[in-house]
């Protein structure tokens, strides 16, 4: 019960800051940081798969609706995609240390683990939103630049938040 209130508040905070703060931070007019992803990626691993998918679909959809000029359904699509990939990635990264992924403690992980965990998923998210928006591979290299800048920008902010709030 305590946990669900905590995560509910967290969700609202991430949504609020994404919509009113991070959506306005446009770096070189190339990319916007999608910091709300961190909420989904830092949900505990003992949460059931169906609720994880539904939460990420809902959060993605809310961000879609509340952002100006966004493509409806785009964030929902890519959020569900990356939470589908996250336990597989975490399993690979932690295979030597943990038998059971459900016991994984975010606080105990080191910086390299976070780089390996956050960076690929943020990249997949950026890649998906850019190419799903265009539904084609036209302007491939410009898109790649946008994806690169967006990934780096999102990752740096997420990593700072991890250091401040999640790590011991």
């Amino acid at each position, binding site marked *: 019960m305590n946990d669900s209130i905590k995560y509910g508040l967290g969700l609202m905070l991430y949504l609020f800051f994404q919509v009113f703060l991070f959506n306005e931070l446009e770096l070189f007019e190339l990319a916007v940081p999608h910091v709300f992803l961190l909420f989904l990626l830092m949900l505990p691993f003992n949460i059931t798969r169906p609720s994880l998918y539904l939460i990420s679909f809902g959060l993605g959809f809310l961000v879609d609706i509340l952002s100006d000029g966004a493509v409806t359904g785009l964030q*929902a699509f890519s959020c*569900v995609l990356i939470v589908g990939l996250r336990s597989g990635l975490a399993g690979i990264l932690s295979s030597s240390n943990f038998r059971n992924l459900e016991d994984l403690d975010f606080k105990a992980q080191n910086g390299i683990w976070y780089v390996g965990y956050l960076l690929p998923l943020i990249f997949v998210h950026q890649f998906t939103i850019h190419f799903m928006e265009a539904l084609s591979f036209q302007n491939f290299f410009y898109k790649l630049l946008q994806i690169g800048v967006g990934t780096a920008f999102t990752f740096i902010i997420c990593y700072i938040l991890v250091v401040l709030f999640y790590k011991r």
Partner: protein
Amino acid sequence: MYRLFSLLSKYRNAILFLVLELIAFFCIIRYNDAQRHIMGDALMDFSASIYNSRSNVDEFFKLRSKNEELKADAKYLQERLAQAERQIQAYKSLLDLDSLKKIDLLAVEREKPYSFIPAHVVKNTVHKNYNYIVLDKGSEDGVEKDMGLVSLQGVAGRIIRVGENYSLALSALNLTFKLSLQALDDSARWVAGTAGVYEWNGGDPRFAYLKSIPETAELKENYTVVTSEHSLIFPPGYKVGTVLELGDKPEEGFFNATIKLSTDFSKLDNVYLVKSSFKTDIDSLSQNLPGNE
């Protein structure tokens, strides 16, 4: 049955994942204009084939009335042909009298500047602001983008997208459809200076507007409105409608008129695509002109 359920419950996470992704993808291509158009191209052929099978069934029950309509069309065409033959004969005899002018009339008769591809309307709407017509002829039948679309009664639209076996036309009942027109008087002679622009404002599919006619034009009610001599995609002088009433003057020196369309869009069925033999020529000439990217 039990095994089916156990299989479903075994993969329930994957199924939920796929269902959510499909819902999101559907939202992307359904509720966003740009993405809808991209997918629209790909889906057009598919959805048109479904409409086609539905209209095939429909067709079967309408065969009798279709037959009557075609007979009426044939009768009209034969009358026009006979009339045209008489005119040709008359001009020939005139020229024979005036032997100074030796025009090779036979050559004029032989050349066919416009050819027509008969097509069949698969889907058509009239009640929206942006109406489109789907036709059962595509690039394999020689359809190209920007061909004109006419029925025997009058102008119907313009091709905007071509699939392999189907094509999509902008209906003349579409806010974006524009066409330059001219008027013919009661004895089918061009009325000087009556050039105007065709526009449809939404609403009643039987009427449209002729806009920006110079004030000096001697336009009268019941004059026939036809495609302009300078049209590239329609044969000049193809019927569009008749002037119903002369209208207001939105700006100095010009006035508008309401026209009654001669095409009955609600019953549009047998149509013809206009292939102009010199359009490709003119297009290639006007390519690479400065300011014409």
